[in-house]
């Protein structure tokens, strides 16, 4: 492979051809600042508009200051990253950006976690000249069920546009207007609710300022907790327990399950349960559905729709309701674990403790912003009482814990409550791409073949590649599994399904790159994909350490069926735990 030799800040380095100055500098330990450049290696996600001009450097022989993120290294190049000319340029450009930005750091939800704030601090900006007469670009604020947009704070980094258009292929956000009033918004500056937005929250996950943030549901949760007439139940998603610690200074991938349960109890929740329990439940229902469809399909039943698609991800559900409504009979009818939990909690559990469902408040802690929207869907309620009342994100929970003066580092591990707190390793791995289908395979295999699995780990289903496939041998029957994470990758598989060309029997789709561990509500990764990989590894590690690793072995699940549901896909199970989908293709048309 061809290599290039160059010098950066008087240090020599040899790099492969095609390396940019920014990347070469990083290899030398030189951290050139940037606001818009973002590269998630391994996930093929790169945002490189070269628009912020903060990463500019001095290069011998070049008249201007080129952006290091977009300039390839050349042989013999001499680069200086912090001459007075460069520092003056960087600071002046930063002053420009700050001059068109609201000065409300003190009350902004991104304060302390904002790339712009950190950069201003790092560059030592102490004043912004000309403020007495400087115009600022202002826009109408927009609050949707999951995402809040405050475009006054947009710095045109284009990361959200890249995620929404290129990665997710949803197309809700793009640059609008020209010049000073340019910003990134839905067409005609419409509200998000009237756009094809799936609420996946990837835009929020990458926004360097407070322009895109989550809707805050802590006040509602606080009110419920303070209400003596309410029994407040909390459920926590698998992806939360391997990321929450980051908000308290721990390394990415620290497993804080026990501390999280302890914190939630300290916050005053009456019952601290685990969404993983409902994940095992989802496997029971969806696994049964998979085997039923597959069985009928192999016998030649034309009404059996194959492939079956997983349906636990509400961003993904929105995506196919907008873009592939003709295929709405193809996904599994099983609800998501969050919603299954809510349905069971407000029926089975409410009965058990003698509480009216109207006096029970179910709160979910999710890595996801689409869950805020999901729990508001009309079909997930009984007589206007939702199965899940509020969904709060990992970030909101961390803030909530801090407001209660708790540092989780000091807490001793505690267990979840029962009967909705026990889970298997299969449930834990729901939080990462490939995890749901691996959990399903573990159960489907044993139920279908009647044999015990010799090897529980299906490593062929794991990894970060956007589209993956594997064939699992079900005792002589080859079952083709497809996996996609990131909606752009899902689209590729769905196009095949629509054309009748899909080779898969079952497909797992997660809207967020990496799966739920990379969800829109997680602690921000700030463009470092190692964080996502560490979280995924932690989930597989937790799975390995669990005594029970297959969903159908969960004793509390078995008890739930015996006492209440009967068997998977029974009439009761169907009524409480299954749903149907809607044709929403009008959502992809934006009317002025």
């Amino acid at each position, binding site marked *: 492979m061809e290599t290039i030799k160059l010098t950066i800040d008087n240090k020599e380095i040899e790099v492969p051809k095609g390396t940019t100055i920014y990347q070469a500098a990083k290899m030398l330990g030189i951290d050139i600042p940037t606001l818009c450049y973002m590269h998630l290696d391994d996930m093929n996600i790169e945002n490189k*508009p*070269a*628009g*912020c*001009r903060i990463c*500019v450097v001095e290069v011998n022989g070049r008249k*201007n*200051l080129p*952006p290091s993120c*977009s*300039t*390839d290294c050349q042989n013999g190049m001499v680069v200086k990253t912090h001459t007075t*000319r460069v520092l*003056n*340029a960087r600071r*002046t*450009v930063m002053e*420009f*950006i700050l*001059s*068109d930005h609201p000065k409300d750091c003190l009350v902004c939800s991104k304060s302390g976690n904002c790339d712009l704030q950190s950069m201003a601090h790092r560059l030592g900006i102490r004043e912004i*000249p*000309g403020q007495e*007469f*400087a*115009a600022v670009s202002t826009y109408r604020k927009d609050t949707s069920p999951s995402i809040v947009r405050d475009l006054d704070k947009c*710095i*045109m980094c284009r990361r959200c546009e890249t995620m929404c258009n290129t990665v997710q292929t949803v197309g809700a956000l*793009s*640059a609008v*207007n*020209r*010049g*000073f*009033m*340019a910003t990134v918004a839905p067409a005609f500056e419409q509200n998000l609710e009237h756009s094809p937005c799936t609420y996946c929250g990837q835009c929020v996950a990458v926004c360097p300022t407070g322009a895109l943030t989550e809707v805050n549901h802590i006040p509602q949760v606080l009110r419920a907790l303070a209400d003596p007439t309410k029994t407040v139940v909390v459920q926590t998603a698998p992806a939360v327990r391997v990321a929450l610690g980051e908000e308290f200074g721990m390394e990415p991938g620290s497993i804080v399950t026990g501390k999280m349960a302890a914190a939630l109890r300290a916050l005053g929740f009456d019952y601290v349960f685990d969404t993983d329990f409902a994940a095992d439940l989802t496997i029971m229902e969806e696994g049964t559905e998979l085997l039923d469809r597959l069985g009928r399909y192999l016998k030649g039943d034309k009404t059996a729709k194959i492939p079956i698609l997983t349906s636990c991800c509400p961003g993904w559900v929105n995506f196919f309701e907008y873009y592939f409504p003709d295929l709405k009979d193809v996904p599994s009818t099983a609800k998501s674990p969050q919603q299954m939990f809510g349905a069971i909690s407000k029926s089975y559990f409410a009965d058990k403790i003698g509480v009216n469902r109207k006096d029970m408040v179910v709160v979910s802690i999710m890595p996801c912003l689409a869950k805020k929207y999901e729990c508001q869907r009309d079909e997930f309620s009984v007589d206007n009482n939702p199965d899940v009342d509020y969904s709060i994100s990992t970030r909101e929970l961390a803030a909530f814990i801090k407001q209660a003066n708790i540092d989780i580092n000091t807490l001793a591990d505690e267990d979840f409550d029962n009967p909705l707190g026990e889970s298997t390793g299969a449930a834990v791995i729901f939080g990462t791409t490939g995890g749901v289908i691996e959990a399903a395979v573990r159960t489907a295999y044993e139920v279908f073949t009647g044999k015990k699995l010799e090897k529980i780990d299906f490593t062929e289903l794991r990894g970060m590649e956007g589209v993956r496939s594997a064939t699992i041998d079900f005792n002589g029957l080859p079952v083709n599994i497809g996996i996609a994470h990131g909606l752009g990758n899902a689209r590729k598989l769905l196009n095949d399904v629509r054309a009748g060309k899909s080779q898969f029997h079952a497909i797992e789709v997660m809207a967020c790159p990496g799966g739920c561990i990379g969800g829109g509500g997680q602690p921000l990764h700030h463009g470092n994909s190692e964080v996502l990989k560490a979280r995924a590894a932690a989930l597989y590690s937790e799975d390995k350490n669990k005594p029970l690793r297959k969903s159908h072995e969960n004793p509390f699940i078995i008890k739930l069926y015996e006492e209440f549901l009967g068997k998977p896909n029974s009439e009761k199970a169907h009524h409480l735990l299954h749903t149907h989908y809607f044709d929403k293709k009008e959502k992809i048309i934006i009317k002025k």
Partner: protein
Amino acid sequence: MSKYSMHLLVCGGTGCHSSESDAIVCNLRDELEAKGLTDKVQVILTGCFGFCEKGPIVKVMPDNTFYVQVKPEDAQTIVEEHVIKGRKVTRLLYKDPVNKEPVSDSKHMGFFKKQLRIVLRNCGFINPENIDEYIARDGYMALGKVLSEMTPEDTIKEIKDSGQRGRGGAGFPTGLKWELARKNQSDEKYVVCNADEGDPGAFMDRSVLEGDPHSVLEAMAICGYSIGASNGLIYVRAEYPLAIHRLQVAIKQAREYGLLGNNIMGTGFNFDINLRYGAGAFVCGEETALIHSMEGLRGEPTVKPPFPAESGFRKKPTNVNNVETLAAIPVIILKGAKWYSSIGTEKSKGTKVFALAGKINNVGLIEVPMGTTLREVVFEIGGGIRNGKKFKGVQTGGPSGGCLSEKHLDIPIDYDNLVAAGSIMGSGGMIILDEDDCMVSMAKFYLDFTVEESCGKCAPCRIGNKRLNELLGQICEGKGTLEDLDRLKNMSNVIKDTALCGLGQTSPNPVLSMMENYREEFEAHVVDKKCPAGHCRSLMEYVINPDNCVGCTACARVCPVGAIKGERKETHKIDPSICIKCGSCKEKCKFDAIFIR
């Protein structure tokens, strides 16, 4: 064509067109028909003559009689007097501005004497909607020569040797650009003509497209042959409907004659051209933004390298050239690189088309050899400053350029000399400024434009230009300080240094150039809070001269804000804190008692 003994050429450029030159053509034809002369005298609607100040133009051939400011009603006189009786219509002849005598023909006009019309060779001579007239003047001969006698490498060498440089503003060597596109291997390549002429007031490209569209088509085909492309695209701004129409007609005719399409002239060479339309964005004149606009994306520039020669339209090797650059190509091929490079200066060969505008007598379009001095352009060809005012400066290069002052008048015009003088050639706009023009306001005027046209992608241009514009506004209102001048300089230099594309990299040029060449004027605005040119309203004070004021109260009655107080027959006084400087009082005063300080 040879059967006609006389031709009446009527200018059909947009300027003359809007002064009813169409009607002149109709009336002339009617008159000729009435007199039974239609097979002896032909009336032709041509492209722009360039002498826009005095349009509509009618030129009589073969004697080169040059009639100016012709009205449709004059058609009868022209036919009866000049055509039939051979007597020139003196009242319609152009009058020399110095001796006021009528000039008998264009060869004796100061406006045309120093011009060398290569790019504009056919403008004003042929009917641009008739391909036969283009062919009769050696049209498509260059393409024929290239296809039958020259290899692509030969052709590129000829263009390189000619020294031709891009006329869109950057001045990049054209031959080298073609060579780079040729070098990159690809199954598909594109030739793109940048006809998005966006500089305010510029109409060089428009005149070529309207007056001689085939010259561009032929050049694009030659380029396609040289670089290995069979697809040509012309990106023309939608605000040029006449140019679009002329191009559509020309393409259709060329295709009919087998000069575009498959197997051109039976040589097996395929090349066709299609049009793409701009949508009102100056930034889409930047080649990468133009390419993205054609791809259906937002018209924003992207980082170079990679340059379009390597990765352009649909990521294929693409050669983008300006209209004017291309229009000279057929002549270079036919007359040779040696001839072309004998015109101009050492590093800038050939001619340049300039659009003269502003406070000059002969507003219009000219083409002069590189190396012509500014003095010659302004005072000889341009006819000097109108209304006898004093020359103050000439702004070149549009919003990307700077202002040259009196001390630069003897500079031979070429790319490098203008850059050394603190400006650029740009696309050829020249705005002449006189003593009544305020240089601070001029700088702000250009920033008004670039702020509006910035695409918004990069921070220094999106926000920096806005701040420059605001600060200049503050200075024009008397709210600036000396420190602000330093701020202007620093912001301008940083924007130039960090902007992503040519728009931002050059938008501070007017500011830096004006501050360099007219520093005293800026200092007057911030230190004395005065506008020496008498232009900035906020810095003007309307004062009543007690010696002349008779107390008629006319001014007080007309003042819209009640700023004037005074008793009948007593000297009146204007309160500067209320006065809005509308000037109504000065207009009303019959005693010349109100002046501006």
